[in-house]
């Protein structure tokens, strides 16, 4: 891990329903290159909204998100170019059901990175091999289990060779027996030095893999620190309260 800051968030606010619902009420944090940040918190705490603001799937109401020195909330910025560098994995996988696995993985590289079909497929096959799904390359998403789908979703994002990976509760929609296989892939990714921001309820994963844990509640960052600090010595009563309930 270096001290090189890849994403810098300043004063981030997000309101829904014309301000009636304030999901984020001023969030500041920096994500460093190679860092694995796990965001935890009760549901409705704004953690998913925070993650979705990082690649502007939600447009912030106020504040800035600076990625590699560029303020991406500036409307003049080509957001698509920046999203290419930020892979995202969703709770519900969101694979494209009308395409084979291979097509799911090569569509964006072919269209955006101007890779040849062969080049993109070679890369995709290599990634599939890594997650042990090379034999399913020509299957359709509906023929896969949930765990397999999520592993595909991860490698689909990796095909774009992103600088950062964003995970939005990647195991919440999975049957318990499939959680492990997905977390294993994520661990492997972390070990390889990928910068990751993970919103999850998997406290074991957070404790084991995170460099930094952020606890959010009611649209604020309440507390952040190493897993050791957050899980073993939480300072804030709300953090202590939350951890008591989930651990």
């Amino acid at each position, binding site marked *: 891990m270096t001290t090189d800051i890849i994403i810098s968030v300043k004063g981030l606010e997000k309101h829904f329903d014309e301000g009636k619902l304030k999901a984020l009420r001023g969030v500041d944090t920096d994500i460093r290159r190679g860092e694995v940040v796990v965001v935890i918190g009760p549901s409705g705490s704004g953690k998913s909204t925070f993650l979705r603001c990082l*690649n502007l*799937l939600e447009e912030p109401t106020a504040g800035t998100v600076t990625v590699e020195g560029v303020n991406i909330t*500036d*409307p*003049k910025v080509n957001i*698509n*170019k*920046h*999203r*290419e560098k*930020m*892979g*995202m994995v*969703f709770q*519900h996988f*969101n*694979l*494209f*059901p*009308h395409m084979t696995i291979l097509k799911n993985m090569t*569509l*964006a590289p072919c*269209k*955006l990175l101007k890779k040849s079909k062969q080049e993109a497929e070679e890369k995709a096959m290599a990634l599939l091999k890594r997650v042990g799904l090379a034999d399913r390359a020509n299957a*359709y*998403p*509906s023929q896969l289990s949930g765990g397999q789908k999520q592993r595909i979703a991860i490698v*689909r*994002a990796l095909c*774009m060779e992103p600088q950062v990976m*964003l995970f939005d509760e990647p195991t919440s929609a999975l049957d318990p027996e499939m959680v492990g296989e997905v977390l294993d892939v994520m661990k492997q990714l972390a070990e390889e030095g990928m910068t990751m921001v993970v919103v999850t309820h998997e406290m074991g994963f957070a404790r084991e893999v995170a460099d930094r844990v952020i606890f959010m509640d009611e649209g604020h960052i309440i507390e952040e620190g190493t897993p050791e600090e957050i899980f073993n010595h939480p300072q804030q009563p709300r953090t202590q309260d939350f951890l008591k309930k989930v651990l």
Partner: protein
Amino acid sequence: MNISIFEQWWLAIEPAVQANTLNFWQFIYKEIYLNVIKDDRWLQYLKGLGVTLEVSFYAILVGLVLGTVLAILRLPQIQHMNARGKGFLPAVGAVVVRALSKFAGLYINIMRGTPLLLQVLIINFGIFGSVRIDKVIVGVIACGLNSAAYVAEIVRGGIMSVEKGQTEAGRSLGLGGIRTMIYIILPQAAKSALPAMCNEFISLIKETSILSYIALTELTKAGDYIRSRTFSAFTPYIVSGLLYLLVVLTLTWLIGKLERRLRNSDH
């Protein structure tokens, strides 16, 4: 002289025709002979069928393309589009897009709210009032513009039935809005819209019969033509009707096949 078997049969019953003493089978043959065989009239039906197919095919294409554009303009995110950023150009852009969306809504309401016959007459005698233009083109334009309004609603329903996560997945990979629409949303929308679309195509094919009002000799007109010659009560209508049925059944079969193929690929 060589005369065909059909002519021989006709000559055999002709005295009975003149004397008005036909039995049931002779009557049937008389109807078939006069309305189908004589003067190669079956060719008239086939020519009419050809025109109906030609007009329908191009009208469906016009309807699909224009209808899809209208459907996209009617999507909530376009209807309520806000200027992205400050400044003159983004503001004007958003206003133009919202105006187009309003226009699309108006267009759909007008086209669905008025009879096709009136639209055909207005387009032929009004818009192309003093232009010498092929009636097939008038027919394609009139039916295509009308169909587009229905297609728009079908496609819009199809697009709305695709989960929001699909758009987000596409956008998060860096695909732009248009590419996400083309590669990810529309193919899935098309699948769920297919049955309704099949209905629309079938309606369109049959509705082209209205073009007989502007003297386009399509299938219904071909029947009318022969009937005006023979004064037969309904035989030409049956022949035309059977040909429509044949076309519609073929189309239904083809779309059913397509649907099964799409179903096999996912879900």
